[in-house]
């Protein structure tokens, strides 16, 4: 009896610790300590490794504010994130709805799998496979010219739309997944109740279905917006010379220029901006949920 009582008592941190500790220790070593190290590092003049001389400085942050190229690129990256997220909502939400509410049984399972499967393929190759579709003389160009009576040149490769298309293709399954999970949890009888009480389809959609699936939309949007703002590989491959974004500049500091302190400072500015945006969105989302 005493044993059972002890198990039944679920107050305090102590009984939860054995289950919690492994996961949180791992996160500390691999996420939180590195981020702290990076913060420290962004105030240094040079690597404190291999006996190099270093001192504290604000110069890395001053570089961001004194050279407009960095803020211009940051705004371009934020815009890219917003556009890709919107396209993912527009494309992914209806698909999630059809999956959750129209398709039934085996066909639903099969199509859900098909939507999720591209996750398992390599993101890079998916991005590059668009090069074959988009380039001049590529599949899109050839196919359209075979159908259309007049000659057009489709050369989207190395352009802003190419970067958008590639990123939407990469991230839309996230939106379908998160929206599907919340949509299929909505009881059909709620929808029927709304309809039988005289609400139109549109009213049911805007007053019942969308508010109830808001957590899924928000989760999907966050899962997409954040990596897109920090993306550098997709713009590099599909954007070519037009594909210089904030992320590609940070990458350069670490793999090409080897100015790690400046890279750390630029990363931290990006982090601050992302956190501010998420914090601004959070109350709106909580009310919506």
């Amino acid at each position, binding site marked *: 009896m005493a044993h059972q009582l002890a198990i039944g008592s679920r107050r305090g941190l102590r009984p939860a610790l054995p289950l919690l500790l492994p*996961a949180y220790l*791992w996160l500390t070593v691999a996420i939180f300590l590195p981020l702290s190290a990076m913060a420290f590092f962004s105030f240094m003049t040079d690597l404190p490794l291999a006996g190099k001389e270093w001192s504290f400085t604000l110069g890395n942050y001053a570089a961001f504010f004194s050279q407009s190229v960095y803020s211009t690129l940051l705004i371009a990256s934020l815009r890219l994130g917003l556009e890709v997220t919107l396209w993912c909502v527009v494309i992914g939400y209806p698909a999630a709805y059809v999956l959750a509410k129209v398709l039934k049984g085996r066909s639903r399972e099969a199509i859900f799998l*098909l939507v999720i499967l591209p996750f398992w393929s390599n993101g890079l190759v998916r991005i590059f496979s668009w090069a074959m*579709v988009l380039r001049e003389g590529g599949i899109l160009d050839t196919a359209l010219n075979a159908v259309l009576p007049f000659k057009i040149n489709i050369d989207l490769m190395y352009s802003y739309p190419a970067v958008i298309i590639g990123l939407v293709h990469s991230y839309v399954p996230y939106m379908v997944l998160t929206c599907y999970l919340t949509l299929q949890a909505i009881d059909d009888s709620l929808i029927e109740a709304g309809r039988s009480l005289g609400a139109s389809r549109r009213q049911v959609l805007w007053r019942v279905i969308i508010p109830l699936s808001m957590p899924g939309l928000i989760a999907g949007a966050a899962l997409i917006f954040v990596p897109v703002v920090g993306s550098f590989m997709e713009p590099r491959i599909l954007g070519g010379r037009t594909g210089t974004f904030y992320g590609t500049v940070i990458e350069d500091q670490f793999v090409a220029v080897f100015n790690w302190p400046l890279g750390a400072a630029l990363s931290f500015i990006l982090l601050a901006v992302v956190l501010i945006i998420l914090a601004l969105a959070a109350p709106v989302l909580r009310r919506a949920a």
Partner: protein
Amino acid sequence: MATTRILEGLGRFYIVLLLAFLYLPIILMAAMSFNASPFYQLPFEWTTDWYASLWQNDQLIAATWNSIEIAIITTLISTVLGSMASLALYRHEFRGKKFLQALLFPPIAIPWLITGTAMLIFFFGVGIGRGLIAILLGHVALALPYVIVVVSARLQTFAPELEEAARSLGANQWQVTMRVTLPWIMPGVIAGGLFAFAVSFDQFVVSYFLSTPGQTTLPVEIYAAIRKGFTPEINAVSTIIIVVSMALMLLTARFFKFGGEK
């Protein structure tokens, strides 16, 4: 009724369009791995040369194995640790719980570019350096929050009375967990595991900053190859990976219903 049917028909058609959008480039990539022209030129001429030359490319094969091993280990570790943490957060009330839940947010919310470069600096500083161990450390940390979020979402649908009932019928904590709670949240655990595998296997950014020559994963190797010029060999290895992972996924689907089916 007729309107409903038309709308449903449109919905189905829309799904077909979405699938076309998702699969067109992938199918194209697979097709090009069987095309003789090294510059992806048409007309199509059948060949399996690219697959043959793949087996000569030791670097690519080594990187592929690294990717698979790291993804599997990441899935195992993060699914177990993540499910444990979800259970603790679900069952127990304690001060600082909100804070611990908020701590899951940074790994998801912070762009991989930032996390990756921070890991590079830290691992370099403490002497772990770059390489497969560093990549594994990073992948598990990235996958953990996804597992916890997905499993916790599933736990929200769990009725705590079921645990109470089992306990009052004499089951101990272990039995309650294994025979009542775990079977219920299994779809969430599986979904979380699949997420973890995908996060690791598809992960390029963090691996890119943490890899060294010889200790890389497939995406990093492919990125290097793309910069040198894309070859049908890459199409070939990608096609193999896609076919294998699809088979794995379909197998999983045969045994478990996932996706939150009740």
